[in-house]
């Protein structure tokens, strides 16, 4: 049943546990923030003790990591506070160590934490998707209006990861001091946040301090919002983010979901009628031909390809155009 609603929670209120799963070695301790009971996907605050060392290897799950405090050595590189990385499933990371210790946020998106020692990517790894960035130093803050209607102007973001198919995002966000936004919001996607520093407030849940966390399933009311002294947090959504704003604190997730569907009907009535009237309710959605169509493959030679009349084709074509010069 996916991850339950964990909100609010503060990792400062619980102790670290030793990581006992195989592959991680000694010196890795964690606080579980949220967990998918079916897949084992989870988000954890992780303390790497001074001298911790993990050999090169990959995870069966895609993973994301951000350095919260200290430094992490990844192969020859040093990842400092604010460094973020995304590693697809099966991507072999170099040896990871923390000579002086480090605190990181670690997210396993598709399965339980795992580490298979290897200096080779798994054959199915989409290695080209790997990326990392110093999110504090090498990215600029951008307005938070990535979707309309938008958050108020004192909420800024740095986009860290984006899935072009699901529109899932990972981002840093901050609220400037004295930020406030007077509406209640819900989304059609799950939302997650970890407060790296500072405190924000939501009308339903009260203060979320440094180390504060939430995993919120879709359609749950949150807001109004405020932050007296500002905050910086890592946020994620698991599919397209749309802000449904309203001012009824007593609406339920089912009512919010129905309102979302009503808005689809009002905005895209033809698509809505087609989906409902033809019972296109397969759990994985209708087929997207762009993802399933037969393709020509690597061996295809475009220039030598024949056209339908059996002749080779060329790129000569005739069209009318205005001359402002002489031809040779």
């Amino acid at each position: 049943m996916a991850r339950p609603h964990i909100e609010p929670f503060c990792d400062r209120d619980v102790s670290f546990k030793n990581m006992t799963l195989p592959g991680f070695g000694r010196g890795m301790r964690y606080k579980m923030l949220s967990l998918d009971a079916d897949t084992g996907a989870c988000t954890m605050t992780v303390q790497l003790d001074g001298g911790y060392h993990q050999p090169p290897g990959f995870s069966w799950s895609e993973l994301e990591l951000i350095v919260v405090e200290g430094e992490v050595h990844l192969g020859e590189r040093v990842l400092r506070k604010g460094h973020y990385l995304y590693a697809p499933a099966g991507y072999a990371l170099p040896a990871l160590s923390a000579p002086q210790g480090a605190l990181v946020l670690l997210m396993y998106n598709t399965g339980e934490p795992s580490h298979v020692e290897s200096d080779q990517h798994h054959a199915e790894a989409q290695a080209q998707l790997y990326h990392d960035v110093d999110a504090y130093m090498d990215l600029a803050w951008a307005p938070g209006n990535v979707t309309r209607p938008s958050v108020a102007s004192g909420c800024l973001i740095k986009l860290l990861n984006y899935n072009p198919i699901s529109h899932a995002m990972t981002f840093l966000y901050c609220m400037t001091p004295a930020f406030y936004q007077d509406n209640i919001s819900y989304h059609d996607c799950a939302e997650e946040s970890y407060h790296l520093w500072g405190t924000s407030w939501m009308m339903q849940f009260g203060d979320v301090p440094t180390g504060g966390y939430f995993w919120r399933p879709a359609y749950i009311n949150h807001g109004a919002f405020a932050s007296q002294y500002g905050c910086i947090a890592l946020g994620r959504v698991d599919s397209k983010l749309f802000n449904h704003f309203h001012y009824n604190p007593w609406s339920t997730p089912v009512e919010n979901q129905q309102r979302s569907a009503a808005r689809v009907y009002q905005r895209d009535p033809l698509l809505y009628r087609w989906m409902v009237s033809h019972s296109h309710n397969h759990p994985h959605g209708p087929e997207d031909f762009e993802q399933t169509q037969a393709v020509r493959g690597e061996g295809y030679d475009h220039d030598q390809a024949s056209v339908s009349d059996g002749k080779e084709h060329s790129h000569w074509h005739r069209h009318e155009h205005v001359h402002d010069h002489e031809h040779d």
Partner: protein
Amino acid sequence: MTFKNLFIEHSRSDEEEAWLQEEIEEQEARFLAIEQAMEDLTPRRARWYQEFFDRITTIGFNVDGDDKRVIPRAGLPVQPEGRRDRVVWKYGADSED
């Protein structure tokens, strides 16, 4: 969850299954504690709701970004009869109760 670009099939060891079960049980306890804490916050939250209504009927409701619209008092919602104030929903719209 739709974060994923890829899921690589693998089997879980008994050790991993045991770890997962332990974490599931601890998460259940964590959830129940949060649910109770949010229930206990209800009287305070009632005041926050009233202050919210006061602001959106005077300063305005954030419609989009910083654009605001003042909500007429007559347009404020009322709490449905018999519906308790609830903010924690275990599985959102799929919650069983």
